[in-house]
């Protein structure tokens, strides 16, 4: 067999929107924004830290010289690993072009799979969601898929975390109202991990925080960045910007200002403690100028997400992306279209930690059916990204010769060996013949998804946490309840 030389292979499809020079141009522009325009920081400790790091602080306005940004870019780790809380297995490696998918957290509403009604999310709905996520093979991490609202709202973040960690072992990206909530959640995680150091070495949780666009770091956000750095725990910092509203209407302007917001968060984080794990985010989209919504389904949203992934790869910072979501008010054809476009683009671009799978209604409502459907779409996208292997075994010229014109390959060992790995078999996507489909009840994809969701809720049991640990977590939740009661 001949040996090939100088043979370049696309082991997976190569997909880029921005060239490296375009990435550099946007980075430089973002640095110019930080040095010239600056950001407002509403947390005093953060301002002090920034001042010490060499930033120009004038009341709450902080301007960041480029050298300070450069230093933060050098010190931030280019990889973060998240593990399973039950097994400790390091499943989610946020590095390079690895793309993992999970849900989002901040939907006030959810669709009840039993009644079909849109209702406020509850602790039970979040528990159900986490079970479903735990059961789906293409979902890699968890966000609550709803804001728990049937508990005292000021400490709902503790309840929300409890509901999540009891019902899934997958890594959790958690929200917290403020650093006090965050501290309680960290305490819960340390109990589960078996100590502060154990959690730091093998984190199964990362905190989610976001600046307020344009160019503002609220007290909650900045203080979370600092606490995460002090604790040595990873933090996701993700500007949510809308072109024409909180950022310029041009895509390059969106990327520039959004990146400036991320980088200023990075500087707060790295100035507190160099080398602390940081995951750069961004939900970058347009404001729909007819309805004023923050669009979760527009083509610009997909385009910007892929561009941001190019930037994150250029900067070598792990990236928090967005996919599998829709502006549609129900799970219909539009939801299918928008979910598929965003998942395909995301899988091709390779941002690392991709959230909001299962969002409908421009992020106001969650749907477990949509989540379950997107589990299949992620499977399709992953098949696409595995690409085409070209070698003697896969070219199969001898087999083609053996079968010759007019034959078929169904009965060949080669087929038997490869058909399952070369082809992705979805769970819910229907490929029956028409007659069989009619025979099995002429069900739409949504109906099949609804059945599967109910089946998981009723019959699937995630790995439980040990009883004593469950009790300790309960204790922390109750403690916070007592605090606000006073």
């Amino acid at each position: 067999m001949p040996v090939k030389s100088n043979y370049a292979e696309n082991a997976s499809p190569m997909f880029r929107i921005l060239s490296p020079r375009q990435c550099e141009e946007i980075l430089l522009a973002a640095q110019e924004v930080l040095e010239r325009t600056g950001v407002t920081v509403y947390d005093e400790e953060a301002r002090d830290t920034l001042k010490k790091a060499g930033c120009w602080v004038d009341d709450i306005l902080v301007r960041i010289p480029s050298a300070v940004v450069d230093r933060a870019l050098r010190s931030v780790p280019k990889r973060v690993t998240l593990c399973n809380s039950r097994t400790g297995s390091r499943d989610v490696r946020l590095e390079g072009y690895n793309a993992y998918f999970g849900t989002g957290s901040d939907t006030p509403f959810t669709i009840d799979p039993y009644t079909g009604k849109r209702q406020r999310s509850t602790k039970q709905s979040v528990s159900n969601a986490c079970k479903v996520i735990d059961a789906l093979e293409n979902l890699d991490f968890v966000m609550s898929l709803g804001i728990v609202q049937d508990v005292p709202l000021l400490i709902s973040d503790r309840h929300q975390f409890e509901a999540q960690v009891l019902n899934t072992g997958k890594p959790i990206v958690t929200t917290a109202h403020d650093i006090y909530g965050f501290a309680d959640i960290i305490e819960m995680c340390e109990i589960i991990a078996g100590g502060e150091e154990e959690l730091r070495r093998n984190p199964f949780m990362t905190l989610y925080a976001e600046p307020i666009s344009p160019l503002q770091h609220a007290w909650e956000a900045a203080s979370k960045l600092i606490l995460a750095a002090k604790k040595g725990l990873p933090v996701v910092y993700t500007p949510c910007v809308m072109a024409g509203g909180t950022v310029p209407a041009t895509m390059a302007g969106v990327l520039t200002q959004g990146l400036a917001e991320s980088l200023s968060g990075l500087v707060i984080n790295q100035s507190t403690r160099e080398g602390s794990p940081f995951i750069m985010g961004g939900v970058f989209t347009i404001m729909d100028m007819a309805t004023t919504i923050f669009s979760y389904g527009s083509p610009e949203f997909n385009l910007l997400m892929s561009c941001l992934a190019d930037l994150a790869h250029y900067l070598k910072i792990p990236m928090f992306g967005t996919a599998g979501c829709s502006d549609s008010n129900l799970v219909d054809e539009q939801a299918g279209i928008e979910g598929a476009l965003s998942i395909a683009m995301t899988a091709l671009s390779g941002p690392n930690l991709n959230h909001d799978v299962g969002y409908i209604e421009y992020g106001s409502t969650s749907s477990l059916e949509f989540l379950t459907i997107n589990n299949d779409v992620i499977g399709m996208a992953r098949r696409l990204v595995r690409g085409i292997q070209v070698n003697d075994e896969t070219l199969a010229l001898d087999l083609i010769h053996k079968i010759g014109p007019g034959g078929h390959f169904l009965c060949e060992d080669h087929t038997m060996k490869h058909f399952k790995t070369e082809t992705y078999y979805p769970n819910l996507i229907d490929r029956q013949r028409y007659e069989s489909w009619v025979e099995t009840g002429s069900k739409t994809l949504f109906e099949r998804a609804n059945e599967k969701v109910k089946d998981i809720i009723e019959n699937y049991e995630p790995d439980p946490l040990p009883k004593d640990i469950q009790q300790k977590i309960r204790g922390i939740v109750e403690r916070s309840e007592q605090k606000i009661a006073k």
Partner: protein
Amino acid sequence: MSKSQYVRANYQVNATPQLKMLSDDQCESILNGALEVLERTGAEIHSQEALDVFKKGGCWVDGNMVRFPSHIVEWAIRNAPSRIVISNQKGERTLFLEGQNVYYGPGPTNTYTIDPFTGERRRPRKADTVRAAKVIDALPNISYAMDCGTVMDVTPTLSDVHAFQAMLENTNKPIIHWGFGIDQYQDIIDMAAVVAGGLEALQQNPFILLYSESSPPLRHSVEAIDKAIFAAKNNIPIVYTPCTFAGGVAPATMAATLVIAVADSLVGLVAGQLVRKGSGFVMGGLISTMDMASTILSYGAAELSLLSAGLTAVARYMKIPMFSTGGCTDSKVIDTQMGLEAAFSILIAGLSGANLIHDCSYMEYGATSSLELMTMDDEIIGMVKRILQGVEVDDEHLALDVINKVGPGGHYLAEDHTMKHFWGFWAPTLINRLRYDGWKAEGSKPMAQRVKEKTQDIINNHKPEPKSESVLAEIQAIVDRAEAREANKR
């Protein structure tokens, strides 16, 4: 000095997104694989005329088995034009099949169609192709016509001729059309020549592409290969498209499936080039996987997109225009599956840079056509075209001065810069972004309902630019001539 007054040196930009499924080396490997198969294994050819052409051209003919020396195939690849320009029916040059220009359109020959008014799944009639042509004519992102179903309420062997007449009468967009055999192809060319103002005008400025389909693996029926020869003789470009599915008529590995598809396409190419050097040839492509549970040829699988993008890469490597597939689904109803499968394949086919992407009307793994799906696809194509435009990075678009003016905590809604540029946001027509309460107030319509209403509205109200009475009469005369001929045959 304002930054915009200097030029950037060494500034390389991606003017559009860049998707490369296969490296050039991989493309060459697949092409070499196909050349080896053609030289070693060969193809079974069921037409005497084609066998003669191949023999005369230097191929090795043994009975109906033909083996193709690689140099002849490579000669054919070199001689095939790298660009073909297709006009609309008014003679305006419309489809530039070259480079990575992308055009979308519907598909042919479904055996059922969904009536957009009654929802009934039934056999297609001539009136359905009339409706299809109107919808095609009205939709801005559908760039050419195909028949959207085999018309079954006419003389069976003239369903192609009748469908062509229905399309000529109801749209002025370019047409890609099939035919049962050479007689029908002649009818079609004659009708097209009437519209174009003569055969020569049609040849110089074709608005039709003929369509032929072989039976993989490596088998070419009389109809398939004779059509390739007929097209070359008449100097009308042809789409030659084997329908190759992994695990069934090709090995289960993607690379081998590409090898068979390329080899089968090249058989058609060699036939055409031997008849007339430089005759227009578009390489096909329906390429997917056989679902091993239901045995269907999947129109929604990830592998359809994967293989189509792979085949497009090889076509591009050979500099031959490419006919690919997208906008189709295995779903039997208008549902979420239809939306997601159509979107997935439209996106990947677009990113792959295939010139003609067909089947934006195929549901139920191709058995049934749906005008509603075509209408929905038109919207998806709009979204994907926005993605294909990519991102501009320059001072105007970086907008640093605007960012500085607005500063922390402000907003951009009332800026001139926003007013100037927000028009670049893609504007949805069927995609709905109303807030929940507004959507409810408008009747809580799912997209399927909005699609149905738009499709019905087009059929009821769209008036395609009519052709002259004399042209229509001449076309009718050709249809009558064909009817007489077929009656004689029986």
